[in-house]
């Protein structure tokens, strides 16, 4: 490929981020899609593969005696540090990666070359796994109040919306089109979720172009129609997910928010979620904390607080909780918007849906949810996740935040989700990987034009095929946590929200719990299943033999090998058996003797600890001066028995000895 200046560099060092002393020597390869590092160690030949599309930043650091360091930060929070012996090679790799990490055409992305060896039919089936029209059917639509509208056929009204949309039955094409003209980017109110238990719904749109005083009759009628579609409630909530100040500022640009006086029977509510720029900076700050070499507890907590990340997560959750409560407890419909209605609105609608409907907490339901609230409603995946080279100010971890919200909920409701943490992590990975076509482009329209479904594969089929890896062993379809809405406490409960080290530090294995309860329980369940089968088989055979014996017929029955599964190991022995990375101050314990003070290793037994433990090195060295080199002073060189040593008569010291 033309952008690769050097396809292969030898004698490259891959530095272990946690203990800088450890590094692996190997060969670096650049391919059209990956950076690959292959370790030289003949027994392992461990390989590290990095997709170009995962690369977030590349940093060339000052050349040292050992070579030229290259720091690669990835969008899945992996950080790779390479040391390339020759400056020129390093520069070539750097320049190549800069270009490779920022493709300019969709066709350069991995999904167009990725070939999982499936035939055409399998690929097509894969794309059919998740079908939104089935989903609306599942919700109970169409019905007396809601109908499928073809107003956006061929994207005639709104090019960032899907063509198939549900709208209130009383909303005529005239009203919809009129309303769309009064909304940013013509994103008119459309149905996101219908709660068939009580007819309340969640609709979404962009902000109205109300400015300081503008009105739109059709838009007012549109909201009225949404209210009417829920006969049990005489009002709807309009939730603006922006901070009030932001919304007000928009008025000056002819945009803004609904004036309660103009719309009959709406209750207007601001829920301040910050914009994409604030979120981008917040993540950046949090990642800086995660990257700290050996932070103290205070460094970490202070940095976490300062990043504001958990505050933002909580704001999104609070908005979702508010909407879910309005729908399930008050039976009121809610219209949600932010500015364009494709970031915060997507977050909040999907969190609310997840709280309300247990279906979205299943493996397939969660795929449907992302398909519905994110992919179909025109969340700008390409811009937000920087798949193609673009404006860096458009990049923001919007769906990452949603995924984290789901994880926070999983922590609170351990039995409520059919999937596990790994599922979330893999989805996050593939949003950035561009290995599958699902998240390409900024809208359905663009995806259609690119013929994504004919040229790429679907992630959902891939995840579904491997679903055994993604199951939560605690999930039971008949468990109380899997029924109905999830109810969160009304008190602030800040302490509910925790740092997700499984995501943001996931490549630092030493920081994660060393034994996985999920994997253990899955293994137990699998064994139970096999036991059930064996039990059945044994019972059958027993019955047979007993029958045979009754008939006094000797039948030689073959003793089949009992196929007990090999059991399950709770611990990853290799990791459990090595001192972990006592990062913080310590990274890993040094494996060498601590007496060989090595200034470079900021490890437990060094500097602060070992050296300063010799008081003579500090200012007030008095009687003990000259003992810094203990090994030389060892009177017996450690060869004599210790008791002999202390039994020696030392006249000179007698004076200070204690006479007991």
């Amino acid at each position: 490929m033309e952008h690769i200046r050097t396809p292969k560099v030898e004698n490259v060092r891959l530095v272990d981020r946690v203990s800088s002393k450890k590094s692996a020597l190997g060969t670096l390869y650049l391919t059209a899609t990956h950076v690959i590092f292959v370790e030289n160690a003949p027994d392992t030949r461990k390989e590290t593969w990095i997709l170009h599309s995962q690369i977030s930043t590349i940093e060339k650091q000052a050349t040292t005696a050992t070579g030229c360091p290259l720091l690669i930060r990835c969008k899945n929070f992996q950080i790779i540090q390479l040391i390339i012996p020759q400056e020129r090679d390093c520069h070539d790799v750097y320049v190549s990666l800069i270009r490779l990490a920022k493709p300019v055409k969709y066709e350069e992305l991995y999904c167009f070359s990725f070939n999982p060896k499936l035939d055409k039919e399998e690929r097509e089936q894969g794309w059919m796994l998740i079908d939104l029209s089935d989903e609306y059917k599942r919700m109970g639509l169409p019905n007396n109040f809601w109908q499928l509208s073809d107003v956006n056929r061929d994207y005639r009204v709104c090019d960032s919306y899907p063509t198939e949309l549900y709208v209130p039955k009383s909303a005529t094409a005239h009203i919809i089109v009129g309303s769309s003209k009064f909304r940013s980017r013509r994103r008119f109110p459309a149905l996101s979720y219908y709660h068939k238990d009580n007819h309340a719904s969640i609709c979404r749109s962009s902000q109205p172009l109300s400015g300081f005083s503008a009105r739109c009759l059709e838009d007012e009628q549109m909201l009225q129609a949404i209210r009417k579609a829920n006969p049990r409630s005489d009002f709807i909530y309009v939730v603006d997910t922006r901070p009030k100040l932001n919304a007000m500022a928009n008025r000056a640009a002819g945009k803004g928010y609904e004036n309660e006086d103009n719309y009959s029977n709406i209750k207007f509510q601001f829920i301040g979620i910050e914009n994409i720029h604030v979120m981008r900076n917040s993540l950046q700050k949090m990642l800086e904390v995660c990257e700290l070499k050996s932070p103290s507890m205070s460094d970490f907590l202070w940095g976490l607080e300062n990043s504001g990340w958990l505050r933002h997560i909580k704001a999104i959750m609070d908005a979702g909780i508010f909407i879910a409560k309005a729908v399930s407890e008050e039976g009121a419909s809610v219209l949600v918007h932010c500015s364009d209605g494709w970031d915060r609105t997507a977050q909040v609608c999907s969190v609310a849906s997840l709280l309300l409907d247990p279906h979205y907490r299943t493996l397939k339901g969660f795929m449907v949810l992302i398909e519905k609230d994110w992919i179909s409603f025109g969340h700008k995946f390409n811009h937000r996740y920087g798949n193609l080279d673009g404006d860096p100010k458009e990049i923001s971890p919007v769906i990452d935040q949603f995924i984290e919200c789901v994880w926070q909920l999983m922590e609170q409701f351990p039995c409520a989700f059919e999937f596990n943490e790994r599922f979330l992590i893999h989805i996050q990975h593939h949003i950035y990987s561009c290995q599958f076509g699902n998240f390409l482009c900024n809208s359905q329209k663009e995806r259609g034009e690119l013929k994504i479904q004919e040229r790429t594969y679907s992630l959902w089929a891939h995840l579904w095929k491997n679903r055994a890896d993604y199951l939560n062993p605690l999930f039971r379809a008949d468990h109380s946590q899997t029924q109905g809405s999830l109810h969160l406490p009304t008190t602030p409960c800040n302490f509910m929200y925790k740092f997700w080290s499984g995501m943001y530090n996931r490549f630092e294995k030493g920081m994660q719990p060393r034994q996985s309860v999920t994997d253990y329980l899955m293994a137990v369940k699998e064994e139970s299943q096999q036991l059930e089968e064996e039990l059945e088989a044994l019972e059958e055979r027993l019955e047979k033999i007993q029958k045979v014996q009754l008939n006094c017929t000797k039948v030689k029955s073959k003793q089949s090998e009992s196929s007990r599964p090999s059991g399950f190991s709770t611990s990853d022995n290799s990791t459990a058996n090595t001192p972990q990375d006592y990062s913080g101050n310590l990274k890993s314990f040094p494996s060498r003797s601590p007496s060989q003070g090595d200034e470079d290793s900021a490890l437990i037994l060094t500097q602060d600890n070992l050296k300063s433990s010799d008081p003579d090195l500090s200012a007030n060295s008095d009687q003990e001066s000259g003992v810094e080199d203990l090994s030389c002073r060892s009177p017996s060189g450690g060869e004599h028995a210790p008791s002999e040593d202390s039994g020696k008569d030392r006249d000179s010291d007698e004076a200070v000895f204690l006479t007991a």
Partner: protein
Amino acid sequence: MEFAELIKTPRVDNVVLHRPFYPAVEGTLCLTGHHLILSSRQDNTEELWLLHSNIDAIDKRFVGSLGTIIIKCKDFRIIQLDIPGMEECLNIASSIEALSTLDSITLMYPFFYRPMFEVIEDGWHSFLPEQEFELYSSATSEWRLSYVNKEFAVCPSYPPIVIVPKSIDDEALRKVATFRHGGRFPVLSYYYKKNGMVIMRSGQPLTGTNGRRCKEDEKLINATLRAGKRGYIIDTRSLNVAQQARARGGGFEQEAHYPQWRRIHKSIERYHVLQESLIKLVEACNDQTHNMDRWLSKLEASNWLTHIKEILTTACLAAQCIDREGASILIHGTEGTDSTLQVTSLAQIILDPRSRTIRGFEALVEREWLQAGHPFQQRCAQSAYCSSKQKWEAPVFLLFLDCVWQILRQFPCSFEFNEHFLVMLFEHAYASQFGTFLGNNESERCKLKLQQKTMSLWSWVNRPSKLCQFTNPLFEANNLVIWPSVAPQSLQLWEGIFLRWNRSSKYQDEAYEEVVNIIEYNKELQAKVNILRRQLAELETEDSCGRPSEHP
């Protein structure tokens, strides 16, 4: 009853009780010598049965003639009683205050408690030093039991029996005791069978400003080293603090006099710093009004997790010296009764699979905390709510339990006990019907005749019906050393203790139940399959031999 004079109003009707997670309930409040009881009149069942000794602080306020008493417990729970009538309320409040701060230990509940369960094994005899020593004696002959402290004369805070190097006689021990803080001469804490290295612990050496020495001390410490080996002295104080201690007659081992030993200073906080930290943390957890930033900032300002990290790090260091460096260690701080014990006991959790079993952990608490002379009576006298701060109060044991919980969280399948077990130990250390945690050391316990007059906590715990509540369903014996991560990202607030009364644990409890079900079901199947296999095998041998099998 001697408490009668303290109980001015033994009974008040129409009292309303408010507590976390339960609807308010109206009932009759009764005060007894040791309990505060509230029973709702309808069905005559007790809604609340609270030990006075569990009460840390009370607040009272009045609106008209309706009095309100807010009771803050040592387990961090806060409950509220609305009492009609100002006089009744004042009486109740003053009685609670008096009864929850009894001066004499012998008036405490354990001396009155009569167990309603059958004692299967008397916990007072469950962990005798001789038995513990036997575990080592098969592996080494370098150590012996010493009865030098039989009358508690050499070291008042040591048990009568200690393990010391064989080559050191009792006379030498007496001399060493005079050179160590509180007479706490170096004794064996743990013998690591894998490589014969040991953990010793002691009080600080009394070197003073003029650098006193003690030949016997040097001899004793060196006697623990094998030929050609070196050791580490881990001082749990920073160098600065250790140096300052010299002015008060204390000090540290000068490496010139202990040439085979290398000293490492770590900084583990003590006393009021820890107590302050606990108070701040509990305050932060109870304050639900603040926003996310305030919460994180208060969590940070409490420094609780910093202490956890510090203690765990030091314990890891100790374990590393033993297992990775193949070096013996001596651990001490000042007295050797607090941070020293945190480190020695946590190092054993890391190194020794036995201490991760229920029985082994009990033995560890018995050996490294109770017999080792951690002053429970002083340290656990008050908890996070008490305003009258005494300098000897400190959540040292709670920090230890928290560290164990952190390791348990990282190795969820390597411990035989579960979180409830740790929570239970915390509760009983602060308020209990059992005598186990009374007194400050074995000498005091002996004088109080606890063995004769009170019941041991272990007698209650070590019964199958109780043990099953404390057994970790995920446990699979793991004979390896377990190295926890001490990175801030890996350490978490112990919700089971600190948020216990601030958030419902319903969903977590359900998850735990699910885990138990999955594992129980598996065991059931296993048993069934085994029975059938055996039956089948029998039948088939009958078949092939033509006669019944002799060995079913």
